[in-house]
């Protein structure tokens, strides 16, 4: 035996103590002795003995108390209880308290050695499992076997969680992670090198290999599925109780919606910039030419350029007003002065205001309604804007000599206002894009028709503000029907008896 197993003999009988000591030293043990329980406990908890042989009956402290002290402080020291007064009860109790064996006195050297050999094997097993446990703790694998309520909580949150140890092995993850990282299969102890997006792995590597006590963390935004899934990943150290980095934790958030809004916003801003720049460029061009002394212009040409500049600027003002209207409609706390508005005179007055245009384009306009009054509780400016935009479109996109029909009907729950034109109509693709900001159908028949591309966007927003809806039927080159559904509040008012129609502010 190269290694000398260490053993502490706790016995108040000097003869037995020394006899056993000699015997064991001859067998290659490293032996220490204590002549009473107190000394036994003191030596036992300050040293790390492989084995302990404890007498049951001692004058100061009972052998079972010594055993208890060992179990508490040195659980890997294998303890034997020996006694001359062997009894069934004390044997059972010593087993309960965790003694490896109960050795009745007197014992033969063979019996003792046999027991100690077995005890020493036990000791080796205990140490091994203790090291294993330490190792597991060091590599965070304990986390994987976590069965607590905390585990349930982490599994149920929306954020993806991944913890890896310093060998880049997975020690913990939740199901949200699989979705957010688009991973089909992941197991504890898988190495994540291949599973993580490359730059994320590099960041984790940097973090794990950085100064042991440093306190860095990283946040990254990553596109997971082309344009579909965007995640924000926060990576932090996982530290052991001494503050050393033993791994990294990834917390993954789904930011796809944010990205989508950001993209829409950017698109909108660049479209607005373009729409605003176009007239500025034209006006700028005219003015530069007028100012340029090397370009000869007669007075009538100059006047024409100035007039066209004014016209471009006024269409720009219209555009800016449309933009302001749109952003105003976005404000949820906008003050609307609502009244019971009769749609019939309102629409009639809009039609009248376009009389010059009807004549210029030889359009035939009809206005049909079946009831005397069509009362709708709303902000008059908004409703005026709604039908002005629609009727103006019906004029602009009509053919010379064409017709327009405005028809109001009452379906019970809704007033349906249809604006039907015999104009250029829409292709199916155009019909679908109709309500997008700045969308304008572009083809040979729309060329030269002025507009901001915001008219129908505004229409749609107004209608939706009043919980209505809009439907468009159209046949290319034949004409379009814009159907506006406005909820008929009269019905609910009759039930609640709230029909006084007084001014109110929403």
């Amino acid at each position, binding site marked *: 035996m190269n290694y000398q197993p260490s053993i502490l003999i706790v016995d108040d009988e000097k003869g037995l103590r020394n006899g056993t000591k000699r015997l064991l030293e001859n067998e290659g043990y490293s032996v220490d002795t204590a002549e009473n329980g107190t000394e036994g406990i003191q030596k036992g908890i300050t040293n790390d003995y492989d084995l302990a042989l404890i007498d049951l009956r001692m004058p100061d402290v009972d052998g079972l108390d010594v055993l208890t002290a060992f179990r508490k402080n040195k659980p890997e020291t294998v303890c034997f209880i020996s006694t001359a007064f062997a009894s069934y009860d004390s044997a059972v109790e010593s087993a309960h308290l965790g003694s490896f064996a109960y050795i009745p006195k007197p014992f033969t050297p063979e019996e003792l050695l046999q027991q100690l050999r077995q005890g020493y094997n036990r000791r080796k097993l205990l140490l091994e499992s203790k090291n294993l446990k330490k190792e597991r703790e060091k590599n965070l694998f304990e986390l994987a076997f976590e069965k607590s309520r905390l585990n349930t909580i982490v599994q149920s949150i929306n954020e993806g969680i991944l913890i890896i140890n310093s060998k880049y092995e997975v020690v913990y993850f939740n199901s949200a992670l699989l979705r957010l990282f688009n991973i089909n299969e992941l197991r504890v102890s898988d190495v994540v090198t291949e599973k993580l997006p490359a730059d994320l792995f590099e960041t984790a590597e940097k973090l794990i290999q950085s100064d042991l006590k440093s306190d860095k963390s990283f946040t990254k935004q990553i596109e997971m599925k082309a344009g579909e899934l965007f995640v924000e990943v926060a990576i932090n150290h996982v530290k052991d109780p001494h503050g050393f980095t033993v791994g990294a934790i990834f917390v993954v958030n789904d930011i796809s919606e944010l990205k989508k809004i950001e993209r829409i916003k950017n698109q909108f801003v660049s479209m607005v910039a373009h729409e605003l*720049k176009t007239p500025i460029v034209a006006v700028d061009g005219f003015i530069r030419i007028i100012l340029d002394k090397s370009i000869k212009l007669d007075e009538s040409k100059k006047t024409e350029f100035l007039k066209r500049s004014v016209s471009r600027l006024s269409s720009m003002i219209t555009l800016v007003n449309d933009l302001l209207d749109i952003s105003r409609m976005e404000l949820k706390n906008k003050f609307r002065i609502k009244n019971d508005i009769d749609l019939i005179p309102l629409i009639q007055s809009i039609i009248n205001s376009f009389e010059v245009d009807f004549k210029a384009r030889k359009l035939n306009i009809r206005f049909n309604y079946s009831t005397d009054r069509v009362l709708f509780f709303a902000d008059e400016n908004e409703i005026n804007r709604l039908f002005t935009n629609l009727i103006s479109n019906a004029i602009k996109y009509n053919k010379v000599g064409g017709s327009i029909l405005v028809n109001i009907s009452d379906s019970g729950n809704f007033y349906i206002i249809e604006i039907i034109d015999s104009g250029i109509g829409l292709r199916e693709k155009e019909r679908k894009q109709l309500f997008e900001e700045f969308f304008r159908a572009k083809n040979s028949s729309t060329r030269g028709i002025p507009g901001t591309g915001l008219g129908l966007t505004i229409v749609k927003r107004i209608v939706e503000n009043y919980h209505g809806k809009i439907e468009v039927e159209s046949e290319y080159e034949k004409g379009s029907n814009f159907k506006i559904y406005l909820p008929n509040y009269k019905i609910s008012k009759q039930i609640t008896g709230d029909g006084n129609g007084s001014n109110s502010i929403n």
Partner: protein
Amino acid sequence: MALIALIDDDPDIIEASTLVLESKGHEIIVASNPDDGFTIVVDNKPDLIILDVMMDEPDDGFFLAQKFRKHGVETPILMYTSVTKTIGFEYGAGEMVPVDDFVEKPISPDMLVEKVELLLSKEVRSN
């Protein structure tokens, strides 16, 4: 004196540019959409093409420029650009965009004339 094809969907820009270039003695032919633009170039073989980048669609001008090159039209192209940076395009003349130079809107008559004359003189030398 050169023949210049001007392709832009904004009639005011066409008018203003035409005036500037005519004052320098050039002859101008115009088109207001990519299809007509292609036709006038193939039919009239101008010395220079001026092309707006954004007609009906944000990159109509690019596609037309590529179409010219694909069909063996080697005429120098000067491209009008408008919202380069805001819309996220960062382009320069070269492989992707087969044009010879850019004029950023708004267009100053001096700058336009300078770039046109430069491209025309190159064209003369290479012939």
